[in-house]
């Protein structure tokens, strides 16, 4: 990468080809935007044409129909709650396990948590709905707890793997200075985990924000997240596709905007979370 010598020649054919292939990603997004701006009578044909006259009121209609502010706030609170609690708790558990892998009890605990990676959600789906409604957790708080618990398997795996490469000298120095385990974790280990925290945070954020099945089964009537609202309102959009697409666009917009600005960071985070 850092070879300063003669710059490799750019393969323009390949660049053109890749740009053409990237249209497969961009065209559906373009389609969403133009459809959201049309009036119903401009639909028809292939639908790829630009709108003749723009109807901004589609967004106002979708805003009212989906109660956008409420639903957006629900999604945001659930995502922020899930990310914060996951980072704080999962890293803590992983630290305790990683530093005690020589003890049988902690090693068992590690395999117990990680084995959940093999348990598909459908087997838990029906009973957990009973469980959450019984405990009065068929709401945002319950959903946050479920994301924290169901993320444990993967996150423990990631954190423990990462902690093996974190040198113990700093920790031991702090301990000889009289710091307790909790202090060592919060003051030394947690900051050292920053790269892994970023990865876990991004993965949790994308999961909680875009998830559909868990909110669908757990949340009781009246509370909705952004994807759930699109599902519930399918019948009310009726055949008014421009309003429906305006609503889809508003649901996609927050994550798209963040992604445009934090693209490099998001991709490297996801990469670190998957390749270890």
């Amino acid at each position, binding site marked *: 990468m850092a070879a300063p010598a003669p710059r490799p020649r750019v*393969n323009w054919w*390949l*660049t053109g080809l*890749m*740009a053409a292939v990237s249209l497969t*990603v*961009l065209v*559906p*997004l373009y*389609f969403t935007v133009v459809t959201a701006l049309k009036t119903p009578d401009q639909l028809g*044909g*292939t*639908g790829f044409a630009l709108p003749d006259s723009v109807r901004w009121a589609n967004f106002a209609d979708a805003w009212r129909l989906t109660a956008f502010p409420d639903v957006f706030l629900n999604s945001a609170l659930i995502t922020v709650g899930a990310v914060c609690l996951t980072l704080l708790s999962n890293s*803590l*558990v992983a630290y*305790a396990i990683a*530093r*005690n892998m020589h003890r049988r*009890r*902690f090693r*068992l*605990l590690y395999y117990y948590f990680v084995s*959940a990676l*093999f*348990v*598909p*959600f*459908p*087997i*838990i*789906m*029906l*009973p*957990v709905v*009973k*469980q959450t409604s019984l405990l009065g957790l068929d709401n945002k708080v319950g959903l946050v*707890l*479920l994301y924290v*618990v*169901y993320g*444990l398997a993967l996150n423990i795996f990631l954190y423990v793997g990462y902690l093996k490469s974190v040198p113990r000298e700093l920790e031991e120095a702090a301990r000889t200075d009289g710091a307790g*385990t909790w202090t060592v974790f919060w003051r030394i280990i947690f900051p050292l985990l920053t790269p892994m925290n970023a990865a876990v945070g991004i993965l949790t954020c994308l999961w909680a*924000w*875009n998830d*559909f*099945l868990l909110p669908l089964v757990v949340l009781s009537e009246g509370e909705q997240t*952004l994807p759930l609202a*699109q599902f519930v309102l399918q019948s009310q959009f009726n055949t008014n596709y421009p309003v*429906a697409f305006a609503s*889809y666009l508003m*649901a*996609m917009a927050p994550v*798209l905007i963040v*992604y445009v600005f934090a*693209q490099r960071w*998001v*991709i490297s985070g*996801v*990469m670190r979370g998957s*390749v270890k």
Partner: protein
Amino acid sequence: MTVLDDRAAPAPAGPRSTASARRRGGTGRAYYWMVLPALALFLLFHTVPVLQGIYYSLTDYAGYGRHDFVGLDNYASLFRDGRIWESYLFTFQFAVVATVLTNLVALAVALGLNGKIKFRGTLRGVFFTPNVLSVLIVGYVFHYLFTYSLPAIAEHLGIGALSGSILADPDLAWVGVVVLAVWQAAAFNIIIYLAGLQTVPEDLYEAATLDGATSWQRFRSVTLPLIAPFVTVNMVISLRNFLQVFDHIAALTSGGPGTATTSVSYMIYNGGFNGGEYAYQTANAVVFFLCIVAVSVFQLRILRRHEVND
């Protein structure tokens, strides 16, 4: 359960007399307090539901009211139920086709991105975009494309076979689901393959080129063996995710037309919550769980054999 009992017993290991030992005892206790709340929540929201699921699968529970123990009756009925066989067949066919296509597409795109191209960062960003979007919402956009745009395009081109919506055709609806699945999942796999390709040292290519290897030979005998671990990871993750397909189905077909695209997850959800088949579908979920474990183990064995031993 055993883990909890195991843990609870020796926790109050009494304080020793010497200072260092006492401190070590103290640290040990701190570690236990660090894992205890998470363990309790995990038991409550993961292990207990799994055990409950297994228990209900042995009853005739409808989701409400009283229930009786019926032994393995649900499991026996599962094997005689045509709907169940159909949904497993659809799910596995879909998952295998989608996994293979996703990985072929992702590897091809990653190879392209790894070439000497301009705007690599931007293109990489574009190709990753589908991964940050909700499958359900993208699914609704694709639903419109399949229902209205594709037939209109086919009409322009005079392809009579595609003049109707493919989602309304029991034989073709699954193709629509595959297209959406590949479009969305390839994004993630591209990034993993790209990471893999960057681990291949440049001079290996040069050596192969000097030996007169064609680009296909270079790919076949230099690149592919070196990125084999990444292929393994991608195949395992893709297949596992596609076997549990749900959002795609909810957005595109609702399991139809008829039951042509009813995946196992969709059937468990629909039958369990709306069809009064609570116990029956928990039995289905247990069988599905065993299938997924078996597939994962099998897949890891096969793919590991092809990896380079280093």
